[in-house]
């Protein structure tokens, strides 16, 4: 009985605390919002590229990841280029925006949509490891990028996306 009363008290306390906190669920972005955050006070121009077979092969080789898209769309802003990539994490898709500087380094990574359970969602501090990286061997979970504890597939998916985008950026610039 004593335990039951204690449990009721605890549950009530949790509900009161939860209710008193303001709502601030994880905010994800639309493509327009992401572009606005990457290029504030600027209207990025959309650029479309059709890769030749040679360019596609070169991008595959440079990135080391599977790549089949011959159509590349990017948004050119004052200080870089924004690419969007949708890929599978575990069984469900994720969309990220990767902003690349003109000299081919990662300037920003934003997750726009993430359908896997929230436990696997990469934290901002993990994403920050990718900043200023260029396409080289160090851009790997086995080298300079530390894996996400308990969510290695989420980390691998984003590292692969950054490698892919940097390789595409290199072959079309």
């Amino acid at each position, binding site marked *: 009985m004593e335990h039951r009363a204690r449990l009721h008290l605890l549950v009530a306390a949790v509900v009161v605390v939860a209710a008193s906190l303001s709502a601030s669920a994880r905010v*994800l972005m639309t*493509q327009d919002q*992401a572009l606005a955050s990457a290029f504030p006070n600027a209207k990025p121009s959309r650029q479309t590229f059709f890769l030749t077979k040679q360019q596609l092969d070169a991008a595959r080789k440079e990135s080391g990841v599977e790549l089949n898209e011959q159509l590349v769309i990017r948004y050119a802003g004052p200080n870089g280029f924004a690419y969007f990539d*949708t890929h599978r994490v575990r069984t469900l*898709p994720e969309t990220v925006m990767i902003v690349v500087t003109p000299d081919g380094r990662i300037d920003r990574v934003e997750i726009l*949509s993430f359908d*896997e359970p929230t436990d696997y969602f990469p934290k901002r501090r993990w994403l920050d490891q990718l900043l200023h990286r260029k396409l080289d061997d160090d851009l790997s979970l086995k080298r300079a990028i*530390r894996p996400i*504890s308990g969510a290695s597939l989420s980390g691998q998916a984003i590292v692969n996306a950054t490698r892919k985008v940097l390789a595409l950026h290199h072959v079309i610039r």
Partner: protein
Amino acid sequence: MFKRITVALATMLIASSTFAQSTEAVEQRLKALQDKVAAIDELKQEIDVLTKEIETLKSSATEKTASEPGVTFGGYGEFRYNNPEHGDPTADMLRGVLYAGYKFSPRVHFNSELEVEHASTEHSGSVSLEFAQLDYLVRPELNVRAGIVLMPVGIINEQHEPTTYLASRRPLVEDVIIPTTWSEIGGGVFGDIGRFSYRTYVTTGMDSSRFESEEGIHEGKQSGSEAGAKDLAVVARADWHPFEGTIFGGSIYNGGSGQGAGFKGRVRLAELHADSKFNGVSLRALVARGSVGDAALINERNGLVGNESIGKTFGGWYTEAGYDVLKDGGMSLTPYMRYESLDTQRSVPLGFERNPENNRRIWTFGMAFKPISQTVVKIDWEKARRNDQWNIALGYIF
């Protein structure tokens, strides 16, 4: 003279005829070119339309939010072949697990795992809900969880997919000292505060009627199956993430296990853990200590005498290390080693004896190969005090 004029006129006629013919040819070629240009323009328009369509598709994908309602699905499993020095080899599908989740709303999520152990219930297998929990996401620092929850104790209990640990067997310390996979009905709060994360729940306690000497408290977990709820427990965990890929943390558990037997049977368990992965290196260590109150009364109720006594105190530790020698590409090949030391009877109640067999030291040496990050083959050799063993394991996660 007439002849010359005739020749000149004939030449002019031929020339004008040739000119007319070449003009006609040029006009025809011009027409063909115009047609081709028109076809190219048409093609360009089609490409533009297709481009817009693709872009629209991509945009609509990006406009989804992570919190939209929807089903999530996954799974993992592992097969193992054991060949002990003393005894017959065995092969088993240890577990096949199907994960299912549903996002009811941006804030309310359900997650569950349905596990089939040992392939078939016609033999020694079982089917169980490993966890089934509802999360109410308030803010990163504070969220609410309830249901059959995984106890946040140790490393393996919450992260037990075969691709996440090194050897073919889970550490024995995280089996009989921490009774993995340990779930109970209850609820509480969890969240992240800066580089710290925490979870704390109130749950059903254990059931001491299934405690014994060799397996310790392992069988006392109730797993949400018609669980006794007379004795409850409190569990709390905190982890520090000093940098990415590295965790230092600990947890404490305190709860009754009598469940109406006339005594409390208080179980206390505490552990500290560290886990780090960097540059292809994997390091992990854990130490755990526990105690059971009313151990003599539990022995009496469970009919345990002499050195069959449950441990009044118990504990163990392990450390393991591995290094991925394939540093480039998607494949990995990781030689590893683990050492563990544990005793389910560090002390026993007065009038009972310890069984030295329950004081175990195990070395494991092996190799894990991942052709892709979601599948693994492991082969290792365990050296225990009295029985060495070869293991081969196959694991997957999706």
